[in-house]
């Protein structure tokens, strides 16, 4: 039998261990030999404690038991993100992991909503037509109903967890399945003089690790893709000016909210992520518009509970590498790009890179095939560029007039693709709807309305529903949502009964 293909992952942390586990779950064990090198001396960034619903399919693919994983990572449920003060102080909305209404008479729901609103017969917000929003506001959670006719089937969910514990959980999972872990710092990278491919890494101990493919999970340093292969960095700070984050945990408070909160501040925004044992907090800010001391005061002043640590500072720049795969080096995680955690996209990008890479992975005896490298990089660009537009949009549509950061982002020139999306929605209620990359039409809708971008016309197809019929349907939908959300199990009770840390491990409750 042929020698297995050697994959070397540089860096532990969330990216390294998600990538190692994902490859172990998607590749045939006999054909690939996977080694991960990490150093206890190098800390991990460990932000990104909030996730998107896609992570459930990743864990399912690995066969991970949900309750056990939540218990191990002090996990809680996330039904969406609440954006507070983004449009203007006092305004708030939730970007839910769920749908807004139904498609009626061949027209998407927002057209019917817009028609009734423009006719003056309905003054509800789109938010009132999302079960996930109502459940989040009620601080409730149950697993979604599997009957698609039930209003309780119209949402999905993600998790808040301790990313360090998640990495540790996956490390145990992966090493139990034959992934080799080496401890040590890389001191030298040797490349093939002709091809430029990386041949081996030398550790501080003198040990050498040879490989066929190297996966760079070294974080911001981008040791292999950036430093060794010299793949240039694309700077997006013209659109996303935040370049610092201060992070600090605080004590838990009641109620246990099933959503992340992002609150706009003078120099950026603060996050609030409730875990089982603490609340993760942070302030993402622009050093051009806000000093560190001011950021520290703002962050500490916004805490709901007692601070459990000193605020820790991170420096970054929004952007990505020109390519995610060059030669025989693939970067996953922060080594490939950085987008602020406004929409919890970091862990999704690790997952996407891992699954794309698994499908395009060379086999024993092959070199990295440029045809597959091109496809990986095409998908890498689509993922990053679409997230960028969505993030930029949160900033640009604001009414925080007189605050320098917010004045800047409101008036800066937009990417053409984004400007067209906004004009189209304003003119016709047609919302962005693409197949590839993150953020569905419903995601866009929540932020469009929340940021005050409202349609001035609806699709003519809506008139296939008589006006009286429409209002009756809207009323019925809003009522079904309100009634069902009101009797959801409180999130705190769900966690206590399902996956509280420190409780004995028992089989997951069956999902009705």
């Amino acid at each position, binding site marked *: 039998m042929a020698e297995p293909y050697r994959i070397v992952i540089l860096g532990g942390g969330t990216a390294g261990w998600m990538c190692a586990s994902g490859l172990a779950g998607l590749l045939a064990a006999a*054909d690939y030999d996977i080694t991960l090198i990490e150093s206890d001396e190098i800390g991990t960034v460990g932000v990104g404690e909030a996730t998107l619903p896609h992570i459930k399919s990743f864990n399912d693919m690995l066969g991970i038991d949900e309750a056990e994983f939540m218990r191990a990572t002090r996990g809680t449920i996330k039904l969406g993100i609440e954006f507070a003060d983004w449009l203007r102080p006092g305004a708030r909305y939730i970007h839910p992991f769920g749908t807004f209404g139904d498609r009626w008479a061949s027209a998407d729901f927002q057209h019917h909503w817009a028609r009734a609103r423009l006719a003056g017969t309905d003054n509800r917000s789109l938010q009132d037509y999302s079960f996930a929003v109502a459940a989040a506001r009620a601080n409730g959670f149950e697993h979604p109903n599997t009957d698609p006719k039930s209003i309780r089937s119209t949402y999905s969910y993600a998790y808040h967890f301790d990313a360090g514990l998640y990495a540790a959980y996956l490390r145990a999972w992966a090493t139990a399945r034959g992934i080799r872990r080496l401890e040590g710092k890389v001191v030298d990278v040797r490349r093939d003089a002709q091809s430029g491919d990386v041949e081996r890494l030398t550790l501080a101990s003198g040990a050498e690790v040879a490989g066929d493919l190297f996966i760079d999970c070294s974080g911001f340093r981008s040791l292999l893709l950036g430093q060794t292969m010299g793949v240039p960095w694309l700077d997006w700070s013209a659109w996303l000016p935040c370049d610092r984050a201060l992070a600090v945990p605080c004590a838990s408070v009641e109620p246990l909210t099933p959503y992340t909160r992002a609150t706009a501040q003078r120099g950026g925004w603060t996050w609030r992520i409730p875990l089982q044992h603490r609340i993760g907090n942070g302030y993402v800010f622009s050093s051009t518009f806000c000093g560190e001391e001011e950021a520290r005061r703002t962050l500490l002043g916004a805490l709901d509970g007692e601070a459990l640590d000193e605020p820790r500072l991170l420096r970054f720049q929004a952007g990505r590498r020109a390519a995610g795969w060059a030669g025989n080096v693939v970067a996953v995680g922060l080594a490939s790009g950085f987008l602020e955690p406004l929409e919890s996209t970091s862990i999704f990008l690790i997952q996407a890179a891992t699954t794309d890479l698994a499908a395009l992975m060379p086999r024993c005896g092959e070199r990295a095939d440029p045809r597959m490298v091109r496809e990986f990089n095409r998908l890498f660009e689509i993922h990053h560029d679409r997230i960028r537009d969505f993030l930029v949009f949160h900033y640009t549509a604001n009414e925080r007039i007189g605050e320098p950061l917010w004045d800047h982002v409101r008036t800066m020139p937009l990417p053409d693709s984004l400007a067209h999306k906004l004009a189209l929605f304003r003119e016709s209620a047609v919302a962005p709807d693409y197949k590839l990359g993150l953020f569905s039409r419903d995601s866009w809708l929540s932020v469009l309305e929340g940021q005050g971008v409202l349609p001035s016309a609806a699709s003519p197809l809506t008139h296939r529903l008589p006006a009286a019929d429409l209002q009756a349907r809207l009323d019925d939908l809003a009522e079904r949502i309100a009634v069902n959300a009101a009797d959801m199990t409180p999130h705190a009770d769900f966690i206590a009964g399902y996956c509280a840390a420190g409780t004995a491990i028992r089989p997951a409750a069956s999902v009705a």
Partner: protein
Amino acid sequence: MSGARDITLVGRDAPLWLAAAALRRALAPAGVTVRAVELPAEAGTADLYATLPAIEALHAQIGIDEAALLRGARGAFTLGQNFVDASGAGRPSFLHSYGAYGTGINGGDFFPHWVKARHYGLGVGLDDFSLTASAALGGRLFFPDTDSEVYGRSDYGYHLPAAAYAKSLKAIARHLGVELFEAASVAVERGGEGVAALRLDDGRRVESALFADLTCERLLSSGPFEAWDTPGDRVLSAVAPRPAALPAYAEIRASAGGWTGLFPSLTHIHIEHVFSHASTTDEAALRAAQSIAGLSLDAVTIRPFAAGVAAEPWTDNVIALGDAACVFDPAHGFALHALQLCIVHLLAAYPADGAGYAARRAEYNRVLRSHFARVAEFQAAHHALQRYSGAFWDSARALPMPDELAHRIDLFTARGELPPLEDESLPPDSWRALLVGHGILPQSWRPAADRLPPDEVKAHFRKMLGFVREAVLRQPTHDACLARILQPAHG
């Protein structure tokens, strides 16, 4: 300016009435007036539309009954197109059918397992794993049921004689309330923002907020039309007697000077023969068509065609639909598909309300251009990958290849994967049929397929092949099915 509460369509034959009926049906509740200015018909006895399965949804939206349609148009079903080498190059034939290949294995796709098995000596081609392809090649139709839907998609299109189809659609459009204007010719009055009015030859003047151009001569359109290179530029149409047993698919036979399509309808085989005027005279083309079809041809007409796309299908207040927006090479029967894409996207963007429609117009142009490009790539792949003999096919192979297509072929060749793309209206199995049919066996497959033991995969394959064989045997022949439909409906 308030919304566009009226639209006037200019065109002829089935495309005019299909568009008028669809727009009227969808927009009447919003109070939109739909007018159709009908130019003299051009569809003759020999002309026929081969449709893709997607047309069924448009028919359903208009409220067209399938049996009544086939009765009225004397049409037939089609499960796909069989591509046959009659050029002497010795290429194997392949069927582009409208069904899925195989069924998923343990939640994973079928195709990578098939690719792997081929590398390890599997002798069974894709068609035996397809309900639709197996039925077509076995002389039967395939109508999906609950079990077959679980296995995989099995769709069908139609062969619709153009003149009779137009007549049925015109009656439906009139019934739905489309206002009819017959005209021998129209003159276009332009204003500040596009077309102000049409002057008909009888002196009537038709004003409208919006106009739709469905004419192949692009009577109302003003912007540039970007030509696409195709190996052929003339198409001969004819009819021949039908055989005793009606095939349930079309056959496209490549010969040295072009290709000959045989499209069964209820009463005839309709013939299309495409060639290039540079190398073949009309007389020689007729002789070739006759010889390749092996049938005596009747009602012969020959017309030029020029494939291409409008740079901006919606300019000012004039919306190009169908041929005015995009003309595909006739090889795959995409003419009504182009029209359907236009209609669907016009309905999504129709500006019945609002102060202006600049963004909706930009969106229509953006989305349609992207959709058209994907479909054109399918045809470009056919031209680039075929290995038929003759000058016609040599020139087809020399045509330029778009970068997106080169990447799609590269990735498929390397790994058997199709890059996911926006605005792709053809299903992945159509692409697999085409690429595998032209001789590409992917060099490798998704490594995830290697996680399953080969014996387990073999067992799955055996089960699939058995299911397909049995399901096909339960299906009716094409003739039996058409005979049933031709009985007038009872209660």
